[in-house]
């Protein structure tokens, strides 16, 4: 397993429309890659492809060592995806939602509590029904569900949307913690100054393809923190 994500000429189709038109992308362990680009460029589809939700129509794609052409189901339990929708049940409380989503991946009780605490939901908000929350509070809850999953690869679609300043700080801190614990993050965002500061690399998605833009603020690719990826350029994935 050389790269966490390796896409080579990946094409994905929604109906008959090619949302991804030959995307090439390589992400190594410990990176925080920011996807930017106009609406409809294919950012969401790229994330959904990596999560094993969108079938690969042509090309090659490997995520966490799983070939998405043949078994995109097996990658799912190791990837955490936060889409546009929060995936919350409106009639359940915050704590119940996080507990449910934690339980789907066998997260322990303490992990769930830690996730709630991390997003500041452990106290008063925990017992509030989700339909009563504001958009930002729902986003926090969704993030807590994601944290409870302890995924190896985090795929975040506009995670900052609706969050207040404190929430954004908590999110950024969480993401940094996650990468230092060995996770890899791909995040799509329009909030360039905030997400750009966080990212180790920025790529642009345009017309269903990917253009490398720049390295992040440290100006060089970060040292890989995972033990498996010490030889960065050695061998092709797949």
């Amino acid at each position: 397993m050389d790269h966490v994500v390796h896409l080579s000429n990946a094409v994905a189709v929604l109906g008959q429309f090619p949302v991804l038109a030959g995307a090439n992308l390589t992400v190594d362990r410990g990176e925080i890659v920011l996807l930017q680009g106009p609406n409809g460029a294919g950012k969401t589809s790229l994330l959904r492809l990596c999560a094993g939700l969108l079938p690969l129509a042509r090309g090659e794609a490997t995520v966490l060592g799983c070939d998405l052409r043949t078994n995109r189901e097996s990658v799912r339990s190791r990837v955490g995806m936060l889409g546009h929708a929060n995936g919350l049940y409106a009639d359940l409380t915050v704590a119940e939602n996080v507990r449910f989503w934690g339980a789907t991946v066998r997260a322990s009780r303490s992990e769930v509590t830690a996730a709630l605490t991390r997003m500041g939901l452990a106290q008063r908000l925990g017992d509030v029904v989700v339909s009563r929350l504001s958009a930002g509070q729902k986003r926090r809850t969704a993030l807590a569900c994601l944290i409870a999953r302890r995924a190896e690869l985090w795929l975040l679609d506009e995670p900052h949307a609706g969050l207040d300043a404190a929430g954004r700080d908590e999110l950024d801190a969480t993401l940094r913690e996650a990468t230092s614990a060995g996770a890899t993050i791909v995040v799509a965002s329009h909030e360039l100054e905030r997400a750009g500061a966080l990212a180790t690399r920025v790529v642009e998605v345009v017309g269903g393809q990917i253009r490398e833009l720049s390295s992040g603020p440290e100006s060089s690719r970060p040292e890989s923190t995972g033990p498996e990826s010490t030889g960065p350029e050695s061998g092709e994935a797949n």
Partner: protein
Amino acid sequence: MLRVARLLAAKDLRIEARSRIVTNQVLPFAAIVMVMFAFALNSDAVVSRVAPGLVWLATLFSLLVLVQRAFAIESADGATDALRAAGVDPAGIFLGKAMALAVQLAVLEIVLLLSAVVLYRAQLRLSGVVLLVTTLVAATCGLALVGTLYGGLAAGVRGRETLLPLLLLPVVAPVLIGATRATEAALGTGGAAVADGWPWVGLLAVFVALFGVGGTLAFGPLIEE
């Protein structure tokens, strides 16, 4: 798989306990359907003769509503995607949602049966209780299984409101026939003997077994993109 099933069933039932959609909307709907049947048939004798059939017919109509509701919960905020993305076993989703649906259906059927006693003067008898309970359990399981199966298929697509009845009603015809005849036998409607009911329960059991296995296998491919 069973762990996931229990998790989902508990979640669905908790949502129902909070939102009370079934209690406050589906039960009244089913009750008004029962009253409407009496209007349409316009004869006390006829109504009491066909009472078991009307109970199950009202159950089928309510099933369509319940299934729509069960999957509206999932699709409202992208939870279907989230479940798939979490790598949750589709067989577990299928069984879990079917279990929750079965509980709701069972409550509904009991209420409908009681309303048949009140409105249609259907007679309950002690000798038929075992048959009646077995019939209720078997028919409920069968309806919940196929309802979940085709509900899952129709959930993600355009025109789901019209596709679901088209797919679901032909499939549940054996349940309607079997459950009605067995209930008639249990209640003694039209002079039916209790013993006449058991072959029909056998039919229901075969139905449950076939669609239990078939649905568990088929649900994954049906909800996949």
